[in-house]
Each structure stands twice: as structure tokens, then as C-alpha cells.
């Protein structure tokens, strides 16, 4: 709006308009739940965005101080309810770290299958919802159709479709049922075609590109400074993935797996699949890149699942035996982060030596990812606000806990 005038204090305006404060949310179709953004707008131009969170605060951390680790598993499900398995996994690994529990090999591979499958489901929701934010409805339903298939698989494995409580400290509640791997294989075989469809409808769609390219550019420095993690961080070109770089207790799950971190280096992404090209105008760290990283992670996760299924079917040992419900925890404190679909989910556990933790703390990835909105949405158009917030792919359940 401002033009180059000699005196920087004098700005030329077409028409003098009054600034307006607009409440976007907590009841708004594209704030992904109950996020409330207070926008200060000058016409269509948003000069300031203030996120207000906490509408979904359910005191999970406080509840965790009154339950044993296994009892708290269902509460982790409800944090990032789109990636319940990954939440379970993060908490289980944290508890196992405190207990110094050695996991059987088979359980590790089972966890990889389940966690990566949930990553696909979560990214599909993120992708579909992003399409919805930009005003196209069909990809959302395509994505949900595929997610339904994953939920069917999960239902076969643990009986639940959303809040699984499947992975527990010590392994998993149950082994995969007979014939499950075959079903999973069938699912994966048809998935690539769907992803190509989504690329046609979104990634390479001209309007989609125009709406996302060069919008909400998050520089790597800013991303790191704001504690952004996961696809948001990698979309800015930072080569960091806890599955490769994380703590031993987490990375040992992926020992021997062949995978590359999805991150742009020298203008292109690691490619072993026929990816659509990066548009010329795309700037590293814009909404398009964040979206694209998620799309590629789906393919990466498919690959990991295939590898994991091979290993799982030949692995020795048990699927793991869950720890006792009132297992006594050693005194001490541990912190562990895992790579969840939306970023790094950390759990901090302080134990006073009883079976009930003294303090449980969940470090939410979306919490940090969302905090960058204020920076990204300064001076954008109103329509870009959902585009930016959608590209961060937030889940309010995780932010508010």
C-alpha cells in the first residue's frame, strides 16, 4: 500500500480507511478447531494478527500428575487426535527411557509401521484441510477416503479409529492380527495413484500455486528461532529430522532403514519417485514448500512402512509386553522428543519414585509452530491468513492440551 515517498512518514493512500478489528474464530471454518485470531485489518490487508489459544485446554498435564503412565496414554491420544499413535509412541518411549526398558525387535518394527501409517493419515488430513482453506473441497474428501482406509487398518489392529491407546510403554497392547500386513500392503499399493491425483488437484494446480507460492515465507533462521519443527522447519530448508538426528532411544527404531530427510537442498528434493517439479516462483519456506514437504513425507512414510513390514514379518521376539499398570517408576526425570507428523512432540517426565509421575509435561510442536503466525501474517491479505495458518497444519488439541 505504501509507496516510495521521500519522507518515510508520509504514506500515500488511495482512500483513507479505518482500521478494523476482526475476530477470526474461535468459531470460524478455517481455524482448524477453536483457534481465535484477532486481526487488525485495513481493508483486505491484515496489519496484525494476534492468536488467542486455550479454548481446548483440558488440563492434560495436571491430570497426568494423578495417573500412572499407562493410564495417561489415552490422554496423549487426545492431544494430537489426528496422530494418536505418534502421541502414544512419544509418551511410551519417554516412560521406557525412564525405566531403561529394552524393547524387543519385533515391537520396534511394529511401532514403525503404526507410527508411519498414522503419519500418512495425519498428512492426508492436513493436505485435505489445506485444500479446504484455499476453497477447494474435493481433495479433502479424497484425502479422507484414504484416511478411512488407514483407520480401518487401525481398527483391525486395536479396535479404535481415533483414540487408539495402542502403543504403550513396553510395546503395544496387542500384536497385529493375522492378515493385517496383507491388507496394509494392498492399501499402500493403491495409494500412489491417489497421491498423484492430489498433486494434480493441488500441488501443480495453477491457482493453488498462485495462492501458496511466496506467501507466508518463513526463513530458516526465523523457523529455528521460533522453535518450529517438523514439516514447517523442513519446508524452510532446514535438514533436521529426529528419526535420523534424534536421541538414540528414538533413532534405534529406524536403525537400518533407508530413508532420506525430506528437505530441499540445492533447489531440489530427494527424489526416488516421480515428484512434480518445484514451481519457478516458489520461495523456500513459503506455504507451497511446507505443503510439498508433507506430500513427500507421505511417500517417504509409505517406503518406511514397506521396509518395516518386511522386517516385522521376519523379526524375532514378542510384540512387547506392556508394563504393569502400576509399575513403580525410578526417581528421576527424562525428556524425549519424537518426530510426529506435525513436528517434534516432547514429553518431560519427573518421577519421585512412586508409580505416579510427579510432573508430566507435553511439549507441543504445533504450539511453537503456531507462534510464528504473528510474524508470517503481518501485512498479508485477509485470504492469506487461512493459507498461512493452514500450511502450519495445526491441531488445537495438541496446542492447548
Amino acid at each position, binding site marked *: 500500500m505504501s509507496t516510495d515517498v521521500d519522507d518515510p512518514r508520509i504514506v500515500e493512500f488511495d482512500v483513507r480507511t479505518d482500521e478494523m478489528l476482526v475476530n477470526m474464530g474461535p468459531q470460524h471454518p478455517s481455524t482448524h478447531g477453536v483457534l481465535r485470531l484477532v486481526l487488525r485489518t485495513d481493508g483486505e490487508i491484515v496489519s496484525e494478527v494476534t492468536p488467542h489459544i*486455550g479454548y481446548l485446554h483440558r488440563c492434560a*498435564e495436571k491430570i497426568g500428575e494423578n495417573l500412572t503412565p499407562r493410564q495417561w496414554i489415552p490422554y496423549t491420544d487426545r492431544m494430537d487426535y489426528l496422530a494418536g499413535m505418534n502421541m502414544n509412541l512419544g509418551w511410551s518411549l519417554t516412560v521406557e527411557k525412564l525405566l531403561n526398558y529394552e524393547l524387543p525387535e519385533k515391537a520396534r518394527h511394529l511401532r514403525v509401521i503404526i507410527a508411519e501409517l498414522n503419519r500418512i493419515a495425519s498428512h492426508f488430513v492436513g493436505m485435505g484441510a489445506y485444500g479446504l482453506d484455499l476453497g477447494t473441497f474435493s481433495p479433502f474428501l479424497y484425502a479422507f477416503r484414504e484416511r478411512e482406509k488407514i483407520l480401518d487398518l487401525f481398527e483391525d489392529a486395536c479396535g479404535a479409529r481415533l483414540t487408539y491407546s495402542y502403543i504403550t510403554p513396553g510395546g503395544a497392547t496387542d500384536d497385529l492380527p493375522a492378515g493385517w500386513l496383507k491388507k496394509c500392503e494392498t492399501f499402500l499399493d493403491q495409494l500412489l495413484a491417489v497421491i498423484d491425483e492430489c498433486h494434480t488437484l493441488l500441488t501443480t494446480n495453477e491457482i493453488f500455486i498462485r495462492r501458496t507460492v511466496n506467501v507466508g515465507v518463513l526463513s530458516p533462521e526465523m523457523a*529455528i528461532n*521460533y522453535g518450529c519443527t517438523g514439516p514447517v522447519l523442513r519446508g524452510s530448508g532446514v535438514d533436521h529430522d529426529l528419526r535420523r538426528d534424534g536421541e538414540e532411544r528414538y533413532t534405534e527404531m529406524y536403525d537400518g532403514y533407508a530413508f532420506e530427510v525430506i528437505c530441499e537442498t540445492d533447489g531440489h528434493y530427494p527424489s526416488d519417485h516421480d515428484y512434480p517439479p518445484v514451481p519457478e516462483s516458489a520461495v523456500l519456506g513459503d506455504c507451497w514448500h511446507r505443503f510439498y514437504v508433507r506430500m513427500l513425507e507421505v511417500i517417504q512414510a509409505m517406503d518406511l512402512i514397506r521396509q518395516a513390514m518386511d522386517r516385522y514379518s521376519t523379526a524375532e521376539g514378542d510384540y512387547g509386553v506392556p508394563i504393569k499398570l502400576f509399575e513403580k517408576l525410578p526417581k*528421576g526425570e*527424562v525428556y524425549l522428543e519424537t518426530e510426529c507428523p506435525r513436528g517434534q512432540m516432547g514429553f*518431560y517426565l519427573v518421577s519421585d519414585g512412586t508409580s505416579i509421575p510427579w510432573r508430566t509435561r507435553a511439549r507441543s510442536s504445533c504450539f511453537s509452530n503456531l*507462534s510464528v503466525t504473528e510474524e508470517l501474517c503481518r501485512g498479508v491479505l485477509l485470504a492469506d491468513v487461512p493459507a498461512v495458518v493452514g500450511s502450519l497444519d495445526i491441531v488445537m488439541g495438541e496446542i492447548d492440551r
Partner: protein
Amino acid sequence: MSGPNLVDQLKQRFGEAITGANLEAIDPWIEVSPQGLVEVCRHLHDEPGLEFNLLNCISGVDYFQPDEKKAKKFPWDVHLEVVYHMWSLPHKRSLVLKVMLPRWKDDKEGELPEVPTVSGIWRTADWHEREVYDLMGVRFIGHPDPRRILCPEDWVGHPLRRDYEMPLEYHGIRGR
């Protein structure tokens, strides 16, 4: 992952600010005094070879057992901790810093303990510190936007404190 030499380095450089360390713990940690926190953090963030540029989490822990029967067996001194988990992207290692605080400033009930803010070093600390303030009741000196974040702005008390009691009523809604 932080070896004893890091502690020595820091002690050499900051002296009194480094008040302790526990290198035997599962996640070894270094204790910093509130006064020295900002300098230590800036050093950790900027110093080549350290570069802890990703602040993962700031947590508050309340070590206080309100139940008098259990308090006898309570394994810690009564205090409040603010724990900083950080990660160095270039060197792929983590670090835990702790700041020990009294539960109330000057032991006066209701006076929140104070820590300088590190939001000038890591912007992500902004929201995390707000959360610690909101739920645990630690005042961060110099914080740019010291509001509650999860609870409503007119909420009374800090819910994650061990002696916190749910209000009887909040705007006509029964609390307990």
C-alpha cells in the same frame, strides 16, 4: 550429551552463575542462577561449537508436597524449577538447563518468583514463558507480552502449582 567439560567451560566463563550440575542423571542438566541465565543462554546460543539454536521446551516443575503425611517422604527440597530443554541443530545434541527458584518470591505467599526472560534469544520462549507463567506462576522479567495464554485472562491462580485449588465458581460456572 553435555560432557563435564562443557560444565567446566561454563563455570570458567560465568563463575557464580553456574550453581550446579548433575551429570549422572539420565538427561544431565546444568543449574544456572536466575541472574546469570540470560548471559549463559546467549552464550549457549551464539558460541560457535555450542550453537544451541533450537529451544525445545520450557517447563515449570513445582516441588512441593501439600499433603503433610506424604511430605515427610518427599525426596526433594521445596522449590520451583524452570527447566530449559534445548537442542543444537548444527551439532545435534541436547542440553538441559535448570533454574531453581523459591516457590514464592521472598517467601511471601502470592508474590510470584522471578526469572529473566530468554525470549530475546529464542523467540519461541515468548509463548513457552507465557505458558509457564500461566500454569506455574513464574514471572518472567522483561517479557514482551506477559499475559496468560491457556487460561482466561481473568483466571485466578496458577493451576499446575501443587497447592492450587480449583475456584468454587468462575463466571457462574461451578468449579468443584
